[in-house]
């Protein structure tokens, strides 16, 4: 199923991110997905060599999750593939019955574990969305006809509502909508007031937006993100909150509480939530419980 159908039905769409390992043992990922995510989120984003670190591929992992009765979202970045490979993978996704895409430019190569690699960026997020849209119309980006019935996807993209240059981000968001983007997931939000202000401007585009959350695990992680991760800012008060009860934070409970609170504060302004748990998938049910979000009936 395409998650755009859920948005159209007016559902509050829940997604969580999972990252394939550097290796082919997916048992742990699959077990966690069944145990913690299947009845709590509608779909699972599968990252594409996240942070430019080489891992098992997103498409193959999507297929495994699909076979497990879960609904995957195939994340595709422009970092590692030129337009031929990107479009070929999009067709491969259609072949495998993967109907949800999240189309990104991608982190730069030097941020990951193969800094010597060639950065491709032949297309970018906007032109990739355009390419997929063209394929849905029966043509590749070079204008050649595609044989048989064209594929159909839910085409998603990302945006950073708490960026220090949110006007520049909004301009890019508009370009993505124009190119055919049908839903957005945001970068991690820790400042509800910024998110709400952003949504007031973003609603003109008429495209659903899922609030992005990164579970704050500890103070070090927050400081690291503040210094290094674009579009993410953890305010001082929240860092103090994580510092206040060290045992509670260590147990992960402070992070869970913060996420639940962020959902409550932003819920009325968003069309869903996307949780990036970075290995803490087991805490997602608690976050959703605490935020008052009931389990869901799984869709495939």
């Amino acid at each position, binding site marked *: 199923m395409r998650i755009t159908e859920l948005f159209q039905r007016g559902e509050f769409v829940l997604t969580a991110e999972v990252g394939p390992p550097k290796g082919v043992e997916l048992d742990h990922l699959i077990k966690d997905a069944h145990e913690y995510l299947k009845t709590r989120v509608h779909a699972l984003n599968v990252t594409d060599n996240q942070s430019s670190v080489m891992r098992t591929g997103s498409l193959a992992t999507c297929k495994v999750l699909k076979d497990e009765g879960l609904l995957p979202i195939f994340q595709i970045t422009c970092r590692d593939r030129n337009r031929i490979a990107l479009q070929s993978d999009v067709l491969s996704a259609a072949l495998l019955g993967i109907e949800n895409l999240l189309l990104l430019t991608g982190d*730069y190569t030097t*941020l990951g574990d193969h800094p010597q690699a060639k950065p491709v*960026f032949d297309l*970018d997020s906007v*032109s990739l969305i355009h390419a997929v849209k063209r394929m849905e119309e029966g043509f590749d980006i070079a204008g050649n006809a595609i044989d048989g019935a064209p594929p159909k996807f839910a085409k998603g993209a990302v945006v950073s509502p708490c960026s220090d240059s949110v006007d520049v981000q909004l301009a890019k968001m508009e370009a993505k909508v*124009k190119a055919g983007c049908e839903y957005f997931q945001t970068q991690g939000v820790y400042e509800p007031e910024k998110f709400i202000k952003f949504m007031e401007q973003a609603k003109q585009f008429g495209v659903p937006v899922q609030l992005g959350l990164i579970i704050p695990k500890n103070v070090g992680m927050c400081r690291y993100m503040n210094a290094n991760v674009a*579009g993410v800012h953890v305010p001082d008060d929240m860092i103090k909150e994580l510092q206040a009860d060290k045992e509670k934070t260590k147990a992960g409970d402070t992070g869970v509480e913060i996420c639940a609170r962020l959902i409550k504060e932003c819920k009325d302004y968003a069309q869903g939530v996307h949780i990036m748990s970075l290995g803490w998938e087991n805490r997602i049910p608690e976050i959703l419980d605490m935020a008052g979000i009931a389990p869901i009936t799984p869709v495939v």
Partner: protein
Amino acid sequence: MLITQLKSKETIEALAQGKTVIINCHGCKEVYFAEHEADELQKDLNGVTQIITTDYICNPDNLKLQLQKHTDVINAADTILVFSCGVGVQTVAAQFESKKVYSCCDTYPLPGFQGVTPLNVDCGQCGECYLNGTGGICPITACSKSLLNGQCGGAKEGMCEVDKEMECGWERIYRKLEKLNKLDNMKYDAPKVRNYHNPNAEEPII
């Protein structure tokens, strides 16, 4: 060597709006420049208040010196059309921040010596100059990812995720377009896609 090839007459005519000053750069002998064709084309353009032919406009100090005696006419102009390689256009655009500065050439590379660029401004020699839509700041060389359709999510406090000493090129472009009241430049229908199959640059006639 570089080849600068004139953009089409229609393109250049569309760029010449209001009072227009033309700057020709006949600097590097290593750059092939279609002098005669440019002269012919410039004769027919409307609104031209001054044609300045000079050299090495890629050097900001030299540019300033060369243009000193034309200050009044440049200040009164609405548009500056630059006939040079991509570096020259960017240097002029940086010097006249509030003017519309447009490139009338596409710059192509040829193997061998590539001219003299004594500064950080760079031209990607892509053969399909984007400077006219980006406020005279090159997205190919000012953006680490050479993105054509706007900022990625990797800028923090205006700096690039790849090189923290480097400003985000698209943030610079956005601010420049904002200043020029040209933000609509970022609204177009088909996203821009680079052509790596370098179009056939004409052989230089030397």
